[in-house]
């Protein structure tokens, strides 16, 4: 795919091993500089150095403006960055002296500028600039000597660098850091081994969050999928199908905060005449009003009902699409063989939509494991209604207990892990089929 550069034959004179050696030296240099930087005694009170313009100063400038003014400025500024990236990608790989200089300048300037935008602290500046320069040199040389011609590695790096930076700094590093922190106490300094995990399973809050999360993950996907499937089958080819679909599908667009308030109103409990629908029905039938959300047994199921209410529409839409994909010939054939509607559904439709059912089930399971909003809005985790995804934030925000909150997050991750593995395997299989 790369643009072939005329210089390719000339450069072949330097053997590959030399290239490898030079790249290795630069890489070792970077690691060495980094190690020297982080093993020096810590200096306190160092001031940030900047070129008079940094990411921080830009965000401060933006932050002082009216929110609606910030939108276009941010969009234009970001578009400018993307435009620079595209121009570099377009022109850098071309052969010729000018483009060579462009690559050279970009390789050295971009890393240095990027680091300086983050305002390295005074005592670290020299090392940071050194690392940036070495990285630039490494990139330039690796690019210059690439088998596919110079400019190839350069454009690849520029294409992928923004996404890679976001993923590594924003997801990979924090996830690893959370695992690391889960072995330390509240302050994050003293190593406590597995104590936080022991806490998770013995402290009432931790214990109930684990139990409730399991209840959520077992109950919500099955019920949502069954109701969604039944509904999809019942309205399939019925009159007003579109309208009936919209009614059940609409909760999908509503936020959990909105859904939480909608259902809190249904669950409303008071003395005297009831304005909450559920208690009005209960009292109308001659019963006593129930305080649904503070009842320690019922509340989890009341919250589950809200979640099921939002997820059923999702299940229904996907399964409805799958049902329409089952070949009519098969259904016709089964009917000619004398099967009734239930047998056709059981033996033809269900096998035909099996993969969609699994997708729906895993998706809703993952969503129910991570649920936060519904619990936060409706009960605040009180009366044993807490779940892992909520308790984790609760421990961090209310008690500043980083160790506990990290351990809860890791337990949550361990619950999700089998589903991740399953999904990756599924994706690999699909690729092989393709």
């Amino acid at each position, binding site marked *: 795919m790369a643009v072939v550069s005329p210089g390719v034959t000339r450069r072949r004179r330097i053997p590959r091993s030399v290239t490898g050696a030079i790249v290795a030296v630069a890489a070792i240099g970077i690691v060495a500089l980094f190690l020297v930087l982080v093993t020096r005694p810590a200096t306190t009170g160092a001031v940030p150095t900047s070129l008079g313009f940094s990411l921080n100063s830009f965000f401060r400038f933006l932050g002082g403006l009216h929110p609606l003014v910030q939108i276009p400025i941010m969009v234009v500024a970001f578009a400018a960055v993307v435009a620079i990236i595209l121009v570099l990608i377009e022109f850098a790989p071309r052969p010729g002296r000018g483009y060579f200089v462009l690559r050279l300048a970009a390789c050295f300037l971009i890393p240095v500028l990027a680091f300086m935008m983050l305002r390295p602290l005074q005592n670290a500046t020299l090392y940071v600039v050194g690392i940036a320069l070495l990285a630039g040199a490494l990139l330039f040389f690796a690019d210059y000597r690439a088998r596919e011609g110079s400019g190839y590695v350069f454009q690849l790096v520029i294409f992928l660098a923004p996404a890679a930076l976001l993923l590594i700094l924003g997801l990979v590093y924090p996830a690893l850091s959370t695992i690391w922190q889960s072995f330390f106490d509240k302050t994050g300094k003293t190593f406590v081994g597995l104590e936080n995990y022991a806490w998770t399973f013995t402290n009432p809050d931790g214990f109930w969050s684990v139990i409730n999360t399991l209840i959520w993950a077992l109950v919500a996907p099955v019920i949502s999928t069954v109701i969604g499937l039944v509904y999809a*089958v019942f309205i399939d080819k019925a009159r007003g199908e579109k309208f009936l679909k919209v009614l059940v599908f609409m909760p999908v667009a509503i936020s959990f905060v909105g859904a939480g308030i909608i259902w809190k109103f249904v669950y409303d409990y008071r003395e005297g005449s009831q304005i909450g629908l559920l208690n009005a029905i209960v009292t109308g039938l001659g019963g006593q009003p129930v305080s649904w959300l503070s009842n320690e047994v019922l509340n989890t199921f009341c919250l589950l009902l809200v979640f099921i209410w939002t997820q059923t529409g999702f299940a229904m839409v996907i399964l409805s699409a799958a049902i329409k994909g089952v070949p009519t010939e098969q259904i016709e054939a089964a009917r000619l063989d004398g099967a009734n509607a239930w047998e056709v559904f059981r033996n033809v439709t269900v096998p035909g939509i099996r993969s969609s059912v699994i997708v729906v089930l895993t998706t809703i399971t993952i969503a129910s494991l991570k649920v936060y909003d519904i619990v936060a809005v409706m009960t605040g985790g009180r009366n044993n209604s807490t779940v892992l995804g909520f308790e984790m934030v609760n421990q961090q925000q209310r008690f500043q207990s980083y160790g506990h909150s990290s351990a809860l997050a890791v337990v949550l991750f361990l619950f999700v892990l089998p589903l991740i593995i399953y999904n990756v395997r599924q994706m690999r299989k699909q690729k092989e089929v393709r």
Partner: protein
Amino acid sequence: MTAIDEPGIRRATALSEREVKRQEREARNKLTSKGATIAAIVIAIIWTIPTFGLFVTSFRPGADSSSSGWWTVFTNPSFTLDNYFSALTSGGTALTLGQSFINSLAIAIPATLIPIAVASLAAYAFAWIPFKGRSIAFVAVFALQIVPIQMALVPLLSLFSRGLTINGVSVFPGFDLRDADHSFATVWIAHAVFAMPLAIFLLHNFISEIPGEIIEAARVDGAGHGQIFFRLILPLAMPAIASFAIFQFLWVWNDLLVATIFAPSSSLPLTQTLNSLSGSWGAQWYLQSAGAFISIIVPLVVFFSLQRFFVRGLLAGATKG
């Protein structure tokens, strides 16, 4: 909802029209019995009533809604718009609902556009620039998609506020945005990060399906990857980008968790303000209901006007979060 009916339609056109009609009549007779239809309508009613009840309440005078159930409105109707005005202007300590409506816009629009741009660049590289370890890198990105956001919250927050410190040596300081009036920077970045795996995955799936001949032809005409991406891939991938954009916009708009952790108190979005106001409003359901519908209105408008894209984005992006 036509998008998802396509396979059915396509197959149907292969058959003659009369046969289709006959089949449909037959299918209707056999599958949708009366009982099934009634059951479906019952489900539909159960699913609609909670929203409808709150909707009615949001137009009832406060004195009415706190003393009698919303269903009494049919025998004793009285309506007002005051609830919406008082909900919009009644603020907590710092923000009114109206102000956080604007904040929600200021958060959601950049938080939709930024990840799309970054992810489409990466998706193009994954799809059309061969390199060593490409498929492993792509699987890694896919796997990151399902890592719970909760795993990344606290360290990312400390990266923003305290900067990077390794082994006791501070390398970079954190952002110093406390005295800014309305800073959304950390929320934008956080949303961009959390959107990244899914966005790359979805856009890659679409971009890699674009016929290679088109791209080859452009290369022969002398276009580099920059031009191909901007002039060819972006326009061709627009349906996928639009679907993801709507999904991401709604996700950000409806998000509570990321805002709770990352947004400074003057930059809180609608969901967060509504949640805290909801606590202080307590049993004042005329305010709760109006507030809830103010926050729901934008998603519902998006839902009804762009349903086709919405369904497509949902089908593809259900695993996010």
